[in-house]
């Protein structure tokens, strides 16, 4: 991942910085708010210890360019004499760029269009170019989402290098990546989300205590070994959950909560279809109707009834004919189907496919309520697990 320091001096620019880093798949090692009142030495020490490869400066018309220039000067002072000084990428008004350029005094830099002009596309492209080959996986996933034959496609992938998601709608695509995942990036996941967040997905008689779980994840990160299935599923769930939460918070992509088609790849394709779909539902907590594909196969048709649909009938049509589906509020149900199946809701929403598992009705409510106490949580997770074939 590209170690990135972000510098901004207003709320909107700070949001842009978070969004651009997420879309480029850069790892934010330092986020500086130029209004924080810190002095040059404190900022220089922060730059020095976090050692970014790129410093992204985003400014806004009419805001104080001097404060941003002061932070850039601290970055320069921190890298005095260094062979590998960070590259500064600056975007903003002409006045701000002039002030930043004066403060750079020799640091490598480049200016780009303000993200407000092109919705950040140019800056994301540039940051990905600075990442090099690492960024290819994210671009590949974007193409997968775009090549699907429908709108509102969410493609998700998790592997040793991290977790990625791309959402394609109306010919456009927005994607994001975090350096947390299964395998060697699992250590970064527990440092970001906390070991308790991973542990809550583990089911069994001997769920390890938090620090002992960290030992296992540390060994998984350091050695080329395969993780126990339960641990790998827990890591995949939590990694995707972190990414989807970050996308909802920082990208504000409309429609990402209601994908029509979900494509699961990477480690998800190594799981059984039921495991992969269950992990996706727990992590992404989608709404509406979706066809979920694991690898190249239709795995399930998923229905998440909205509150206003409670009590309204659902109908499924497959080779065995038409049936009404009943669902229990708070429960997860799986209805096997034969051949091609079509699900209709009362409001004439339709989802169709040839799912291996069948139709999954997820009426557990949103957001998922997962108890903190081990005993209650284990009971609930076992009940959910029992619903799957």
């Amino acid at each position, binding site marked *: 991942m590209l170690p990135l320091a972000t510098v901004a001096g207003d709320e909107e620019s700070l949001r842009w910085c978070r969004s651009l880093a997420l879309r480029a798949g850069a790892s934010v090692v330092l986020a500086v708010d130029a209004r924080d009142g810190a*002095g*040059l030495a404190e900022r*220089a020490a922060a730059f020095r210890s976090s050692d970014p490869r790129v410093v992204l400066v985003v400014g806004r018309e009419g805001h104080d360019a001097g404060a941003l220039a002061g932070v850039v000067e601290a970055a320069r002072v921190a*890298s005095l004499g*260094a062979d590998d000084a960070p590259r500064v990428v600056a975007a903003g008004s002409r006045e701000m760029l002039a002030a930043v350029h004066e403060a750079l005094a020799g640091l490598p830099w480049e200016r780009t269009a303000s993200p407000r002009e092109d919705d950040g596309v140019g800056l994301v492209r540039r940051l990905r170019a600075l990442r090099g080959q690492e960024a290819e996986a994210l671009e590949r996933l974007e193409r997968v989402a775009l090549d699907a034959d429908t709108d509102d496609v969410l493609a998700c992938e998790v592997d040793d290098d991290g977790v990625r998601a791309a959402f394609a709608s109306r010919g456009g695509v927005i994607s994001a990546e975090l350096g947390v995942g299964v395998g060697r990036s699992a250590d970064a996941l527990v440092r970001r989300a906390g070991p308790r967040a991973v542990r809550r997905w583990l089911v069994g008689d001997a769920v390890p205590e938090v620090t002992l779980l960290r030992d296992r994840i540390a060994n998984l990160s350091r050695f080329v*070994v395969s993780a126990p299935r339960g641990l790998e599923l827990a890591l995949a769930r939590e990694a995707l959950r972190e990414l989807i939460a970050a996308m909802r918070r920082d990208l504000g992509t409309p429609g990402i909560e209601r994908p029509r088609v979900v494509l699961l790849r990477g480690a998800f394709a190594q799981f059984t279809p039921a495991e992969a779909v269950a992990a996706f539902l727990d992590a992404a907590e989608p709404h509406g109707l979706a066809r979920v594909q694991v690898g190249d196969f239709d795995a399930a048709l998923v229905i998440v009834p909205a509150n206003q649909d409670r009590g309204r009938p659902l109908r499924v049509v497959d080779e065995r004919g038409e049936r009404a589906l009943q669902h229990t509020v708070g429960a997860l149900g799986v209805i096997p189907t034969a051949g091609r199946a079509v699900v209709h809701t009362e409001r004439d929403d339709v989802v169709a496919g040839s799912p291996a598992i069948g139709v999954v009705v997820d009426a557990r409510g949103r957001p998922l309520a997962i108890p903190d106490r081990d005993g209650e949580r284990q009971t609930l997770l076992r009940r959910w697990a029992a619903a799957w074939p």
Partner: protein
Amino acid sequence: MALNWSHGERVASLRLPFGASSVVAMDTLVRAGDIVARGTHYRATRRVDAAKALASSPETVRGLLRVRVGDTVREGAIVARSGQRFARAIVAAQDGRLVHVDAAGGVHLGTIRGEWTAQAPIDGVVQRADRDRVVIAGSAWTLAGLAAFGPSRAGVLSRAVAQPFDDLSPSGLDVAASGRIAFGAGRAGGEALTRAHAVGVAGVVCASISFRALVPIYGDDVSAFGSASWDDAPTILVTRAFGRAGFDPDIFARLAALEGERAAIDTATASLHVFAAPDASEPAEWRDIVLDDELSGERADGL
């Protein structure tokens, strides 16, 4: 993972924290543990618009300074002065250091939170020394480890346990172990590690450690990839795995044969350097590690 015990030329590169005030001279012969750089941790920095205060142009501010950048200033000391009969001056409001002079003629004065020192992790010759880093080249017997935590430290190599599968016992550590690098334990617990640090043990080399011990000492953010630091924290080199493991008997025997030699743990590269003659030991390779099915440590039958 194949990890080696071998002799050869080593290059240690120390990336210094911000605020270096003095560094060792080039081509100096240093021993592991020698201080090669000193610097300052700053609490806060104040910017004084010196060009305005001295009624001069930004370009001339440097020429009006009475102290050099990086120098200590006492409260009341004149930092810069201009004019003859009607003099203008900038006076330090409190003790600190002159951190930086910017292009706009601003003078940044920092107050001091503490001092840091950087120690040489290896015997050798200084090949590069500046505010960015100190590079030292020398020869040593080196044991490559898995992960290291804390600052690099030097001491005298000393066996910590009787057998390579024994745990490091807190009760066996007293001030007699001060200045030593204690090696050979299968596992070090949190109590043993903190006690070792308290009685002055320079560092611990063990086969394994659990996050149950690491988290309370190094914080929640501690990584499986190690964390070199400049703080006053225990120094530990983990050689095999997290959770539990045994020290490799062959490596244990080789280190035991060098007991009493000077040694150093380089936490930046997660390695132990022992400064002994090239013919003092024989190279060796770790046996491959086999983890148990749950990944909670080395398999018991692999010990």
